[in-house]
């Protein structure tokens, strides 16, 4: 972990995302002191993710509007069909630019913009998935001084995405979902 206190968490997940996120997000308390931004690859609107996780999670779960200010205790799901970015100053910017690696929302786009905005105060997490999205973004987070955790490819539902993140980003640590969840809770206590 970097020395700087974490100010925001970004999470990317693809194939197997709902299962993996279900083991993490519901365990975060309602007063979790950080904003948590999540990109899941979903085929089309409406994704149903906010409805699903609202019922499971203690934290507030939203699909943000453009220029919304990030707040603690809130999970932000990228709206289907839009890239989710973070502006310097900590507000949301959405974009309808081309898909990246066939995906919109794209994990790389979220990670790279959040890395630029939060620098060393960012924690990135790459979960299960069957493509390479998130690998470049993870490297960018580390390049800006932040830290990256990756779901252990050996136990992930789809190993490709975590494996790609680890390959691009040697400073990232591979952990079980359980250990990732514990890390999330402990960085918030710093």
């Amino acid at each position, binding site marked *: 972990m970097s020395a700087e206190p974490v100010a925001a968490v970004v999470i990317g997940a693809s194939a197997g995302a709902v299962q993996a996120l279900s083991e993490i997000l519901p365990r975060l308390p309602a007063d979790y002191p950080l904003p948590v931004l999540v990109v899941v690859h979903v085929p089309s609107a409406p994704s149903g993710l906010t409805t699903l996780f609202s019922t499971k999670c203690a934290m507030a779960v939203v699909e943000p*509007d*453009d*220029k919304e200010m990030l707040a603690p205790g809130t999970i932000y799901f990228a709206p289907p069909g839009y*890239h989710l*970015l*973070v502006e310097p100053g900590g507000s949301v*910017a*959405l*974009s309808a630019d081309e898909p990246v690696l066939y995906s919109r929302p794209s994990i790389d786009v979220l990670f790279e913009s959040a890395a630029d905005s939060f620098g060393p105060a960012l924690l990135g997490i790459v979960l299960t998935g069957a493509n390479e999205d998130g690998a470049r973004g993870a490297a960018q987070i580390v390049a800006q001084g932040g830290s990256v955790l990756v779901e252990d490819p050996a136990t992930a539902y789809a190993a490709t995405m975590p494996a790609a993140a680890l390959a691009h980003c040697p400073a990232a640590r591979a952990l079980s979902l359980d250990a990732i969840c514990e890390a999330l809770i402990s960085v918030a206590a710093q």
Partner: protein
Amino acid sequence: MNEAPAEPVEDIEIQLLLEALYQRYHFDFRHYAKSSIKRRLRQAREQLGFATFSAMQEKVLHSEAMVGPLLDYLTVQVSEMFRDPGYFKAMRERVVPHLRTYPSLKIWIAGCSHGEEVYSFAIMLLEEGLLDRTMIYATDINPGALEVARSGVYPLDRIAAFTRNHQQAGGKTSLADYYTTAYGRAVFDKKLRAQVVFSDHSLVTDEVFTECQLVSCRNVMIYFDRTLQDRAVGLFRDSLTRRGFLGLGSKETLRFSEHAAAFTDFVREEKIYQRGEA
């Protein structure tokens, strides 16, 4: 040394590049959302083969030929005909009955890019029997994009999505009635644009040019910062007649706008607003 950390060199270079583009050519991207403009500029730098933004800036200042390609990176928007079908369905079912009460109509499609939204509105108005009495102003800052919009020609492989959207939007006819195909492309009927004026207009630097009953500006202001969003919404307010309509993108909102009080929700879930009486 205990000074505040210096701004990253890349950010300084980006500011200088945008300043050059403005001072030299009057294209003003200085108040675009930083995160998305940075991403687009990084793509442009990579694909146009520059090592740094400073090198790009030097080229921009000295070669006008550089401006077109750069604009294409900075303004390219990806849209579909009848994108977000629920929006067009709400327009048809909730807004069109109001539009019918006017003897003549003006509609402004702001930031029309390649024109998908323009043809969507034209088809809907034709189906509703209103196209003859409507003038549509389709504006964008990118001359290349306006040229594509004016041509009404789209790759054939996009037609399936357009057709699906048109049906979901409550289309009363077959989309195939409005285009012919040739050489892998779909050419939309000239009659759809007989009432359309395509024009160069910037929400950043230009003023209001007409009074209209409806403004549709979707997924354009997401690329602006708050200051610039306020300017654009102010233009829409000043352009709209009393009780005129403003349609935004599905994740855009007037909640954060300094002009929010001038509008009321009309179809909340589709981000269609109505200008108040004041």
